[in-house]
């Protein structure tokens, strides 16, 4: 599961729990069951506006059970462990540290390239394309499912469709073939600058 999917699942679960608890309290507090004539099943909590949120009787009912203390310790412990694991995952680097490059004719030789070297190589080739002002390439994905993410800034007068086409046909295809991969899925984010390359530096702001 990708990092985004994990984050969105956490948000969704917490949101649903908050909505459910809040709606239960609101329905009981405004006496909606009686007013709307809804028959609630037995054991449905928080049905009357005159009852306390957590009565002594219901507290004693749970805390008298055998399983109460193990559960009361295990559930917060699991939440704490999960939260710490989430925080730890944020510290980890995105993407593989090194990438294996196939060596033609090299028997038993494993050539590994650092991630940043791959990023620099692709960036250097993309910048050579016409109409590209600046590019940032990040290698993401696992070591066996390498993928790239490129942010490309275009110059005015560039044809964005052609730029995409030449990106796919040129630097990205070269990276794919030289890494010996069947596919190299690449996300591309295009941006554009309003300044032409020959326009020189921005005039300084005079106060």
């Amino acid at each position: 599961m990708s990092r985004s999917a994990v984050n969105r699942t956490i948000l969704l679960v917490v949101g649903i729990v908050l909505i459910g608890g809040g709606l239960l309290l609101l329905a009981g507090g405004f006496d909606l069951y009686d007013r709307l004539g809804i028959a609630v099943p037995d054991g449905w909590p928080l049905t009357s506006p005159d009852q306390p949120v957590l009565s002594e009787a219901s507290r004693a009912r749970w805390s008298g059970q055998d399983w109460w203390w193990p559960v009361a310790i295990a559930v917060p412990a699991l939440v704490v462990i999960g939260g710490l694991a989430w925080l730890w995952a944020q510290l980890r680097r995105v993407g593989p540290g090194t990438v294996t490059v196939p060596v033609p004719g090299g028997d038993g030789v494993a050539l590994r390239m650092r991630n940043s070297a791959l990023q620099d190589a692709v960036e250097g080739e993309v910048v050579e394309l016409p109409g590209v002002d600046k590019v940032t390439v990040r290698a993401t994905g696992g070591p066996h499912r390498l993928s790239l993410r490129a942010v490309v800034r275009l110059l005015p007068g560039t044809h964005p469709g052609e730029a995409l086409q030449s990106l796919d046909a040129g630097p990205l295809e070269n990276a794919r073939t030289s890494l010996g991969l069947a596919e190299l899925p690449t996300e591309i984010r295009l941006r554009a600058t309003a300044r032409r390359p020959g326009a020189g530096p921005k005039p300084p702001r005079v106060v």
Partner: protein
Amino acid sequence: MNGPPPDRPQDGAPEPGAPGPGAPGPGPSEEPTEPIALQPTEPVDIPPELVASGVVMPELVGLEAEFGHAAAPPGEAGPEEWPPTVPPGHPHRPRAPRTAVTGAVVTCLLVLAGAALYDAVAVATGHAARRWRADFTDELSTRHLDDPWVLGIAAGAVAVGLLLCWLALAPGLRRWLALRRPGAAIDRAGIAALLAARGQEIPGIERCTVRAGRHKAVATVTGSAEPALVDRELREELAKFPLAGPYRLDLRIQPLRPRPPEERRHGHRRLAQEPR
């Protein structure tokens, strides 16, 4: 004056039964299919507009390109037509990772669960409950459901829950627009910058500012140029973007007001230079 807002020429999906060369091509130029129709056997004669807009792949030339792709609606190119550097799937806007808000939620959960764990362990090992826990359970057992505090907190929890669910489901990243190539997106400010740069080059245009929204771009043009010419030029520029969805262009022409050049923008300078 507002320009007519028809859809881009790409969005008119050609009928499947229409003859290939006569179908409206998605390229920005008006006659993208003419060279192919005239000389279908010439192998290298593909208009770059067709290649750029993703209709004709470079290796498909001649008759194959004409019959295989000229009538295919753009944006529905199958995954087998994309090169292997294109991620699978259909074009869509990138989704935000939601790291910051998840970090806030996880921090709240850690604090709450850590306190609950500490107290549970303390009570289970024979110590007294913490002061805050005793107060909290006291409040819970004395306040009734129709207490304003209870109702207010419940309403707040529902509101926060709705916000979290919306954040979890909405894609976010509204500044990006999806392109037809899967996995590609373009900055809305970038579209505005490129359109404005093109508008500035039209002779007779004094100023051209573009605001690019999520569904349409509004170009405000000041100058003495012919509105039809400006409209055509800007639409030509907009057609270069292989956007995944429909996108409109509104043109607003402002009349050229004669104004003294240095006075309005640098009023303070004029004041400073005036003799006292």
